[in-house]
């Protein structure tokens, strides 16, 4: 029986000890459930003579860090690797690992460039953006002004989330006017200032979309401007900060990526493949994000 929150059961181990490296980052609360998922997988699989070692890639997200992590895992002769590759530039090393007989399971986010990974479980950033776009359109009744704040210009995931929503809105709801995008470098305080300035120059904005870090900064600005109820913020991830504003009403929508489940299931699927050659159900296992609304926060 898989632990609570997991959906995949482990098969019997007939191969002897199995070592899985779980490579992930840690720089904000988003990663906490990822770490917990990896720990749960380790506990669960230890009954089957397998270990899942969590390897921290540090607090700066970059393709180089992922590459160095995979190189290190190969040097340490792990049997399989679960990784959060995020960037385009990681495809090459993933292919190299696969060629060397070490299967790689991608979770959370991967680059656009195709790689020979065993499978990818996660949210497709573009469709996540579209999912949020649909929600935005509904909340705005198809018209009005939408302010957009993105994490880093040029960060693939951020750009895809942004364009997923914007492209959808532009074609389906041309009456919604887009203000921005502006870059907040994942900083809440920058989201705060940007929101303040956007509300100055466009007092009729009714919704603000933050694609990456720091959406609660925008929510706090809405609160400080006394616009709660008139302006709503939508963003990503079920973190304590965000949830607080979902309760008080500045935040009106949060798309969650179920990172705990991704981490746990991916580890078990990789284990199953390693001991029994059992392929994952498909190359891409989409995680449809759960959209949390103020109703969920109550």
């Amino acid at each position, binding site marked *: 029986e898989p632990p609570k929150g997991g959906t995949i059961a482990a098969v019997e181990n007939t191969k002897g000890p199995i070592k899985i490296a779980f490579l992930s980052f840690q720089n*904000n*609360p988003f990663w*906490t459930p990822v770490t917990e998922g990896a720990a749960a997988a380790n506990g669960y699989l230890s009954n089957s003579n397998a270990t899942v070692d969590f390897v921290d890639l540090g607090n700066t997200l970059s393709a180089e860090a992922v590459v160095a992590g995979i190189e290190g895992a190969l040097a340490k002769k792990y049997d399989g690797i679960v990784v959060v590759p995020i960037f385009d530039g990681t495809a090459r090393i993933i292919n190299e690992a696969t060629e060397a007989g070490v299967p790689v399971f991608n979770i959370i986010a991967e680059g656009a460039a195709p790689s020979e990974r065993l499978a990818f479980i996660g949210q497709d950033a573009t469709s996540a953006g579209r999912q949020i776009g649909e929600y935005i359109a509904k909340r705005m009744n198809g018209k009005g002004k939408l302010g957009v704040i993105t994490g880093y*210009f040029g960060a693939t995931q951020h750009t895809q989330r942004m364009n997923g929503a914007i492209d959808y809105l532009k074609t389906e709801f041309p009456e919604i006017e887009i203000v921005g995008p502006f870059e907040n470098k994942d900083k809440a305080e920058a989201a705060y200032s940007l929101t303040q300035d956007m509300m100055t120059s466009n007092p009729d904005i009714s919704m603000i979309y933050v694609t990456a870090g720091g959406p609660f900064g925008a929510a706090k600005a809405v609160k400080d401007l006394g616009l709660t109820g008139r302006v709503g913020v939508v963003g990503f991830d079920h973190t*304590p900060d965000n949830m607080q504003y979902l309760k008080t009403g500045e935040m009106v929508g949060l798309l969650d990526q179920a990172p705990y489940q991704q981490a746990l299931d991916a580890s078990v699927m990789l284990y199953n493949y390693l001991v029994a050659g059992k392929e994952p159900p498909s190359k891409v296992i989409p995680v449809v994000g759960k959209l949390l609304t103020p109703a969920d926060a109550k």
Partner: protein
Amino acid sequence: MGGVEAIRALGRQREASVLVMLAAVAIYLSFASDYFLEPRNLLNVGRQASVVAIVALGQALVIIARGIDLSVGSVIGLSAVVAAVLMRDTGSETVGLVAGLLTGLACGLVNGVLYTRFRINPFIATLGTLSVARGMALLMTGGIPVTFGGFAEFVGAGRIAGIPVSLLVMIVLAVAVHIFASQTVRGREIYAIGDNPKAASLAGVNLKRTRLFVFAFSGFLAGLGGLILAGNLASADPNLGMGYELDVIAAVILGGTALSGGRGSIVGVIIGALLMALLNNAFVLLGISAYWQVVTKGLVIIFAVGLDGLQRGAEED
């Protein structure tokens, strides 16, 4: 004529060219956007500049004394986290706030001691504390932001008669530091050790104590900046202030302070911080397209200082 003379004298000041740039951007904005001159918007710009400006006041003294403090961004984060955690755990706001300020001071003292006693180049010493302080903030919180409110939130986000409190704090501090730097003995000694440490020391200026002081002061102001920033967001994120060091140092240098020490003005620092905040405001007000924002920021920085360089002409470095 007195007036012309005064303008000439102003032109010779290093901060003049940044002031010209600031005025140019402001004048342009007042035509290009209907909202720019609204008092509310101007006050927002002031608020947005306030934390960088406050931290830059300390940094300016460090740089004038021929040092550099790269750790300010991390100290912002650590102080905020310490304050928030203690406030949560002890239930006392005072304990939290005082602890936050003391944390900043302590980080500054550590930098100062690493420099004066262990003779570690300040660039490296503060690069080290940059990392250590950030790590400690992450360890204390497990990476999860801590709620932060009360008085700090008032300072960070509140207003008195419509004026942001953090802007008032910045103005008061700027005046105080300006007076300190230009009118007190210690202030004068800071300039002296930046100009020629050996000569200043032989003339009786206590090198170690003065250096320790500027680093401690910079740490303290970074701590204060952290409390304001976290107060503004009502949340102390261990990643708070990441990358601030470059903004802060840029504000100081834009304002005409020489990285080689001995020279610099507090007024210039404030102008530098305002210019950077004004640019961000301009992007939003004018709705400049995404990537051009990045390009424009670079160009304005170059122009602001380039004016000064060209004016000085073949003078010397």
